[in-house]
């Protein structure tokens, strides 16, 4: 069993146009920068991207949007991206906006082998349109289906050659449950270590969910909203 690949290009080499991808991250925090850049370089298009956000104009998934590589975006919040809004309002881009917790839980359901779950978010709103509902204990819930994604692409802090992953701070976000949800899961990590070096008590994502892993390079880790306080 060898999960280690040389770099992002090799990790994504069988991703074809028209594929459905999950991409980890919240805002620009914990996004798979190396793989996104490799997808831009490869030039695949008509992608369906499932990700909480769509990056900003010149970083993250925004780079794929710039090259018109995305056919459909499934996200919860897309506010920081002017090109996204332009493509959406002009009808070039298909968009499905879903509540953030529903997005996370539909990933989780896939990773846990559950075909669907009942969720409260969106009841009585346009999110509920066309969805099956069921009443439990006097409350209506929406039937929400597990995602079906060809690839999941995630970013972790550390990983080992078995594919075990450890995330850092709030860069964890959607990465663990997306890692569990891909038919093929690709993990890029800041530091790749030999099996045995990670404390098994501290692993967040077991390697069984990860098919390919590599150590990324040149992480920019751009900050979207730099907020600070003065030293008193």
């Amino acid at each position, binding site marked *: 069993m060898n999960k280690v690949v040389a770099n992002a290009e090799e990790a994504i080499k069988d991703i074809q146009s028209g594929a459905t991808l999950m991409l980890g991250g919240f805002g620009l*925090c914990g996004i798979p920068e190396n793989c996104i850049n490799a997808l831009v370089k490869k030039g695949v298009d008509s992608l369906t991207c499932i990700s909480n956000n769509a990056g900003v104009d010149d970083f993250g998934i925004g780079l794929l949007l710039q090259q018109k590589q995305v056919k459909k975006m499934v996200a*919860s*919040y897309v*506010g920081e991206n002017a090109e996204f809004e332009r493509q959406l309002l002009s009808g070039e881009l298909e968009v499905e906006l879903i509540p953030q917790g529903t997005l996370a839980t539909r990933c989780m359901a896939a990773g846990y082998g559950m075909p669907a779950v009942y969720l409260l*978010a969106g009841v*009585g709103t346009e999110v509920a349109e066309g969805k099956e509902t069921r009443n439990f204990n006097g409350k209506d819930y929406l039937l929400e289906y597990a995602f079906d994604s060809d690839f999941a692409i995630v970013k972790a802090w550390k990983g080992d050659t078995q594919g075990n992953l450890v995330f850092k701070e709030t860069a964890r976000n*959607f990465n663990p449950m997306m890692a569990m949800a891909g038919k093929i899961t690709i993990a890029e990590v800041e530091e790749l270590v030999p099996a045995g070096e990670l404390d098994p008590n501290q692993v967040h994502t077991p390697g069984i969910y990860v098919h390919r892993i590599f150590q990324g390079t040149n992480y920019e880790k751009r900050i979207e909203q*730099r907020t*600070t306080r003065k*030293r008193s």
Partner: protein
Amino acid sequence: MALNKEQIAHRIARELQDGFYVNLGIGIPTLVANYIPQGVKVVLQSENGLLGMGPFPFEGEENPDLINAGKQTITTVPGSVFFDSAMSFGMIRAGKVDLTVLGAMEVADNGDIANWKIPGKMVKGMGGAMDLVAAAKNIIVAMQHTNPKGESKLLPKCSLPLTGVKCVRKIVSDLGVFDITPDGFRCIEYAPGVTIDEIKAKTAGRLTIADDVKEMVFNA
């Protein structure tokens, strides 16, 4: 005079109780953290995956891996914990978060809230707002009473796409504090210098005035 944003946040902070787990939304709600009353300890939840959010970092100490739900750089306090987004919304859904404070474009007198979409104009998405309003035990809305044209945002029925139905419990606007009751909005406090007549004129939804309505007092 109508309250400014800081005063709205200040007034909302008085609703915090010792031991509360609290989720603060983007904008005015974020400012509530600056007015936590003395002797009250709360734990701030950020729905991207953190309990125990601290203040903004000192200049030069920003960490790109450590942000809040508004994508702002932040810090943690002792006893903080990170988790993934599924668990984060799991604890919200399971009712573990005691109080949610968020902004709104419109609130109806039955507690419906709209804050995520203006058809044809603004398409940003709902983020975690729909999950939060569907599940939180107690929801307080921080908002301006009227839009820039002077039209009421406290309505008989929301005109914008809904974020959640019958979920808001209390509103703190620039004009006063309002409970949502079976009879609609009930004014329980008014901003210093604001008259009940002004509140009546600027509230389109059903409105009652509490018998013991009083003027808000700011000491600090």
